[in-house]
């Protein structure tokens, strides 16, 4: 009898430990190409450090015709995407979903949003301003960025790993992927979620607090 009791206790304990170990410090992966660097420790020994891929310095006009750079996002995590205002295919769904995330983290000053237009011909800041206003998100928390074709397209493909391009055969004139890319406070990519897929958008909503928790320690 006593033996059985001990046995049950042991199993319960193991289960509790197992469950709590699963929950604790779930960490988001770090994406992108990695490099290594040999560094010198203060005591003269050497060690190898990992260099992660980061978002390089950028400078774009926002919806208020003001230049924004990385410094706007210092100390913030942010969700970035690529779209254009006259897009009738996936952009409305992406921004419908992105807006629900925006609403959820509206009062959290550590979370920001950055949408880059890929329509360098038509989407001037004034058009972006109108769009942001109509979407109901006009404010400093959600930045809409306008830049030259080269600067935006290179940034999308090389840094955010999102494919974008001009396509004259497409009715809207452009093709692009609908990823919402999660960037941490150290400019590293921590997640990419299909902005047209409700399950992945829900996952992003869960992952933002996980990423924020990393910086709380």
């Amino acid at each position, binding site marked *: 009898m006593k033996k059985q009791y001990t046995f049950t206790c042991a199993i319960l304990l193991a289960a509790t430990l197992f469950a709590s170990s699963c929950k604790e410090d779930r960490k988001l992966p770090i994406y992108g190409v990695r490099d290594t660097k040999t560094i010198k420790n203060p005591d003269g020994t050497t060690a190898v450090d990992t260099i992660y891929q980061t978002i390089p310095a950028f400078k774009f006009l926002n919806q208020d015709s003001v230049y924004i750079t990385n410094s706007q996002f210092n100390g913030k995590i942010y969700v970035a995407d690529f779209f254009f205002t006259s897009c*009738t*295919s996936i952009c*409305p769904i992406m921004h419908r979903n992105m807006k629900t995330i925006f609403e959820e983290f509206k009062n959290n000053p550590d979370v920001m949003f950055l949408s880059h237009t890929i329509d360098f011909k038509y989407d001037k800041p004034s058009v972006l301003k109108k769009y942001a206003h109509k*979407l109901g998100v006009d404010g400093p928390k959600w930045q809409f960025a306008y830049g030259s074709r080269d600067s935006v397209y290179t940034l999308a493909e090389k840094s955010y790993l999102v494919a974008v391009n001009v396509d004259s055969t497409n009715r809207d004139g452009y093709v692009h992927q609908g990823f919402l890319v999660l960037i941490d406070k150290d400019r590293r990519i921590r997640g990419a979620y299909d902005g047209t897929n409700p399950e992945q958008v829900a996952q992003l909503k869960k992952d933002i607090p996980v990423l924020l928790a990393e910086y709380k320690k």
Partner: protein
Amino acid sequence: MKRKYIIISSISLTLISMFYSCQTAETVQKDTYYVNGRDLYIKHCQNCHGEKGEGLGALTPPLTDSTFMKANKENLACIIKNGISTPVTVHGKVYEGKMPEFNLANIDLAQLIVYITNAFGHKQGMYTNQQVEKDLKNCK
């Protein structure tokens, strides 16, 4: 006695359900149009107008204004087929901007219109190919 009761009740139940499952040919056709129209809606319209016809901010008007849908029923085919770039007032709010054209066949337009005028809280009934043809002739 009890057995007889069970038999009678099951027979009458069958008869009643048979009676109620009988539909007129028109209802069957309307339902077919509605279901096909829903597929077309998901494919062509839902991006902007939303799953429940709720629209998107001030960018895309909702399709839930019954007064608008009724007053503009003859224009719906034209709006879908040719797009629209003049402002529209829905639920008392003015929506500017452009809706692109969707060059669909008349039968598809009819099915789509049956769906959007019977979903989202509307109940406007059947809308036929002939009506589409007639309405398209009067496009502005």
